[in-house]
Each structure stands twice: as C-alpha cells, then as structure tokens.
C-alpha cells in the first residue's frame, strides 16, 4: 500500500535547490531521448545547450529571447504569489503591442526623442487595461480569472488580425497582413552595432529590481505574500482583497504589455500577426522555474530561452526535429512539479498485514 504524508519541516534551501535538480533531470532525460532517436547524446546536448551561446552573437540572441520571458514572468509572479491565476499574459502582451504599435504608427512620419517613451508607456497601459478585465470581473462578479484571462488571449489575437489585415495594414504593402515599418524614432535603440539586443533589456532589469523592492520591502508586497499563503489570514488581517487583486493584475498586465512593445519596437519593427511565439504562455513555466523570485526568474528566463535557441541549432547541425524544444520545456515543468511534490510530501510504501486491512 502506498501512503502519502505531508512533510512538516521542508528546508527552504531545498525549495530553491529543486529547480536545479529539475534542470539536471531534464538534461539527462533529453540525453535519453536523443539516444533513443539515434543521436550521440553528448554531441546532441552540446549542440543543444552550448553551441547556441558559444559566441557573442549567440549570447546576445539568448538575452534578446530571454527579455520578454523575464518581463512577463516578473509580472506573473505578483499574480501567482497572491493566488491570482492570470493565464492570459499572451493576450496582455498582444494588446499592449496593439496600443503601443498604434502610437508608433500615429507618429510614423515624425521624428522626436519623445516618441519611443510614449510608445512604451502606451504599451504598458494597454497591457494593464487588458489585464484589468479579468481582474474586475473576478472582484465584482466572481468570475474565474483563469477562464476569462485565457479566453481574452484569443480576443486580442483576433483584434490584432483584424487591424493588420484591415485599417492598419501598410497602404503600400499589397494587402499583406502587416503594418508599415515603424520610424526609427519609435524603435528601441540597439546596444551594440550588428547585434539585435536592444534597450528593452533595461526594462526587464528595472522590472526585476522594482519587483524585488515591492515584494520584499513594502506593505503591498507583504499583503501579496500573506494572501498567497492564506486567504483567510489576509481577510482576518483586514487587507483590502479587492484592491490587491486589481493591483497585481495591473502590474502583471503592464509587464506583459512592455514585453509586447519591446518585441515590436525591437527586433520586429512593425505589427504583424506573429509578434509572439507564445511568450505569454512560456513565461508561466519561467515564473515557476524561478520560484516566483525576481532573481530566480532572471535565471529561469535564460534557461528557457536557451531551449528555443538549442532547438534551432540542433536542427541545423543534426537535423533533430525542432519540436524537441517544446519537449524540453515540458520536461522542465514536469520535473519541477514532480520534485516539488516529493519535497512537500512523503511517499511511504507500507507492507500489508492482515489485521490492518480492516481499518
């Protein structure tokens, strides 16, 4: 018979250590998969995890890819810490990109230092407003925020489709579903000549510092953490639950909106239908792998970004199917959840005795 018992004393050191165990297990699991597929596992893992970042360009691409993941995950950590399950970051990213991109298009034939800040601000506000929808519905109408935020993803994507096909499509673009190229005044400045890494990374770093400050040094952060640990305690302590829900959703939406604006004003340079390869969903893995801790999230976003780059390199050099990248992301989450489970619960295998069966 198998008996599962809760552990009473879980050392916090182990709690922060399990993500590393999950990553090591993922690498081992990946090696086994590569072996089964008929590749030399060591060589395949080298192409997967080392080759992509073996030069400056590769490393800059890693940072470029990690930037939106980090930003979104930082925002999500506020929601998740306070037991608010915002699954719709992808939608908030898209809506932020729509609003920010709209401002960029408004200024397409103007120059000025003030344009980019306006675009960024518009993106953050766009994401914030879009995140307020599930938050308001949750606080005032008791709807389920998981469902609402998820369904709004499709709303925002369809809205983007409509805009780039119709009213915002490039007048000189033969009806192709894309807008004009943004003017240089609404593009993120590049940090190095010849690399795509842009000033958006500072937004992500600022978000990390700010979130650490809010979560660990302010009353709001305290409220968020207490609500996450026990809603009843939070109520008993007299915290204003509704306001807090609105605030965490707004922070989360603003971060996702910033990520969206960073993509369109950074590497993409226009609005079209494929502005995000589901960063908003992948960032959920990043948030949990980073233990909802700001600095953990930096680390986690780099690891997850590497699974994207690795999948491309592995296909270029070894023709390993690119979907292996998603398998890796899935494995990381699986091993993380599994090791968490074993961390918090004891699994006892008891030998059966006849008289015990009666109980």
């Amino acid at each position: 018979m198998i008996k599962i018992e809760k552990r009473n004393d879980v050392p916090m050191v182990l709690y922060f250590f399990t993500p590393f165990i999950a990553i090591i297990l993922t690498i081992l699991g990946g090696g086994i998969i590569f072996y089964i597929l008929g590749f030399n596992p060591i060589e395949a893992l080298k192409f997967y995890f080392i080759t992509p970042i073996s030069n400056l360009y590769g490393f800059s691409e890693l940072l470029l890819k990690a930037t939106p993941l980090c930003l979104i995950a930082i925002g999500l950590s506020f929601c998740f810490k306070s037991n608010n399950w915002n699954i719709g970051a992808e939608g908030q990213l898209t809506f932020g990109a729509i609003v920010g991109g709209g401002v960029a298009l408004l200024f397409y034939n103007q120059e000025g230092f003030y344009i980019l800040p306006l675009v960024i601000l518009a993106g953050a506000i766009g994401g914030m407003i879009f995140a307020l929808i599930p938050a308001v519905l949750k606080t005032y109408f008791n709807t389920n925020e998981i469902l609402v935020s998820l369904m709004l993803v499709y709303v925002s994507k369809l809205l983007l489709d409509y805009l780039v096909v119709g009213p915002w499509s490039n007048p000189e673009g033969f009806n192709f579903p894309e807008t004009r190229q943004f003017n240089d005044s609404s593009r993120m400045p590049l940090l190095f000549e010849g690399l795509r890494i842009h000033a958006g990374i500072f937004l992500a770093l600022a978000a990390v510092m700010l979130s650490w400050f809010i979560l660990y040094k302010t009353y709001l952060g305290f409220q968020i953490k207490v609500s996450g640990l026990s809603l009843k305690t939070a109520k008993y302590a007299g915290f204003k639950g509704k306001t807090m829900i609105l605030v965490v959703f707004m922070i989360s939406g603003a971060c996702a909106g910033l990520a969206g604006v960073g993509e369109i004003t950074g590497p993409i340079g226009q609005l079209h239908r494929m502005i995000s390869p589901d960063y908003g969903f992948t960032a959920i893995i990043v948030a949990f792998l980073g233990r909802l801790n700001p600095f953990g999230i930096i680390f986690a976003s780099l690891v997850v970004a590497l699974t994207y780059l690795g999948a491309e390199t592995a296909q270029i050099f070894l023709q390993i199917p690119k979907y292996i990248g998603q398998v890796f992301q899935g494995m990381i989450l699986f091993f993380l959840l599994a090791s968490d489970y074993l961390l918090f619960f004891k699994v006892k295998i008891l030998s059966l005795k006849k008289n015990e069966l009666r109980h």
Partner: protein
Amino acid sequence: MYKNFFRYLISAIFLLGFSVNSNADFKVGFVYVGPTGDHGWTFQHHEGRNAVEAAGIKTTFVESVPEGADAERVIRQLAQSGHDLIFTTSFGYMDPTNKVAKDFPNVKFEHATGYKREHSNVSTYSARFYEGRTLLGHIAGKMTKTNTIGYIASFPIPEVIRGINAMTLAAQKVNPNIKTKIVWVFTWYDPGKEAEAAQALIDQGADVIMQHTDSTAPVQTAEKAGVWSFGQASDMQRFAPKSILTSIIDDWAPYYVERAIAARDGTWKQQDTWHGLKEGMVAMGPYNSAMGADLVKEVEQLQKDLASGKVHSFTGPIYDQKGNILVAEGKVADDGMLAGMSVYVKGVEGDIPK
C-alpha cells in the same frame, strides 16, 4: 573599365578558389514556415529539398520557424554555419532575408513569394498558381449543378485575389451562370477553421469547394458532404479519393536543383522568377475519372495551351464587379497588373475585406 576588370578578377578568384573545394563544402539551407508533414506548402518545399539532396548537394532545413523575431536568427545561423545558398520559403521572411543578406554578401539568398531584392545576392521566386486556378475553374464550371462554387481564401493579397479571379473567369467561360462564394479565414493553416469554412460554403449551396489554404481539412469536409473538391499545393488525392477532381501541385524541385547547381558552379545570378505550367513549377494532379473522358480531354488540352502560351488566364474583355473594363478585348493582362491585382472580377460575390 576598371570596374569591369575588378569584377572579372573577383569572379576569377571566386571560380578558382571555390571550384576546387566547392563540391565537398557546398551546402544549401532551407527555412520552412510549417512542419514538414503539413501535406501542403512546406511539404512541397521539403520535396524540393529532397530533390536537391538527390542531386548530390548537402542540405539543411529548419522547420516551423515563426515569421516574427526568430526568423532573422535562424537565417543568420544558417549563413554563419557555412551554408552557401539559403531558401527562405515564406512571405514573412522577406525583411529578415534582406537584412541578413546585407551582412553576408558571399551567401546567396532565395526568398519565395516576396518582392524585395534589396541586395544583389537576393533572388525572389514564385509560381503562377493562377494558371492552375484556370483549369480548376473550367472543371468547376462544368461539374457544378448548383452553379455555386465555394472558395476558402486566406488573405486578400494579390496572389489570392488573382486565383479567385482566374478561377471565376474560366468557370464563366463554360458556364455563364456561375457564382463564386468566398469565405476569408485569415490564416494559411488552421484545419479547424478551414473545415468550418468549407461546411459554411456547402451549407450555402456550393457543390464544388476549393481553397487557398494549406491543410487537407477542406477536401476531407467535402468528401464527407459528398461535394467536389480540389487539392492545394500538393497532391491530396489520398485524403479524399472520391471528392478530389485534381490538385494544383507546387513543384519547386526543378527550380531548387537548378539554382543550387548554379550557385555551386558560380553561375548564380540575381533574378525574379515567376514560373508556371510551362516550366513545371505548377503541375496538376491526376484527373478524377468522375469528370468523364470528354472533360478530362478538354482540360488536358487547356493545360497544354496555357503552358504553350496559346491561352492566357487573363484574356480580355475582363470587367470588375461594377462593370468597369479591366482588360480590353483581345488584350491580356501584363505581369505588372497581375502582381498588383486588388479587385474582384465580375461574378465574384461580396467585397474584398479592407
């Protein structure tokens, strides 16, 4: 004078330097927008790649590359890792391709269906799919009983509108009462949406369905509903053996092999290619015997005439929906007009989404 001299000198050095070891090191890279198993667009590009490989040239591919920020990195990685010729096989790769081409002047780039050739090492290529649509229109006009043809369209770009118009014109020629009903799905590949669109058209009385999207869902829906359909991009007969009358097949293989060999041998030049039935870039699948021997013969003759240039898909008089003349009697539309086509011809129902 000097310029030419330098050009010859450089090409001579190239020929000397490259022809020695080019056969061993020469590599071609492919960037796909979908999975190799989509049985449509990407599948056919992958078949083309297989042909290049069979010609003894090493190739690499990366599949399912999103047309966003990731495309540039993948193209650049291929250029950096020693690929000499890179095919980017979707419209959305246009800007990234040109951007990377600027930084790798010694690597050749071939971009499918785009119109930007900003550097001398970028070529573009596409196929005259509309010639296939003309054949489909002829068949559809003869086969329909309800005089309603259902058309699932992706995006209102010239290529798609050209297909709708070519089909409608050909169908009108054999059946003046024909109506073309269109559903815009705004996607290239979404089996669920495509199936829904096919069903909606069938419910509106269409008994011939065709699509400018990539999945096999429309032909499968048509098979279930017992109406006629056509395969798109690849031979889809086995997915709907009863319903499919024929397929428009994109055959990239001859072009890919030719360009790969040219690049290897140093004779590659920038060009804008638009090949059709004549060159074999557009091919037709087997004709369904349900069409009857007479119709098959007719269509085969029309196919030959389109290939030889005796018949043109857009021969005047052609009118737009309001009755304004687009192409005068006895004239044919030139490539410039075809490339920018943005209005429906008379007989198509509805408006182009704006």
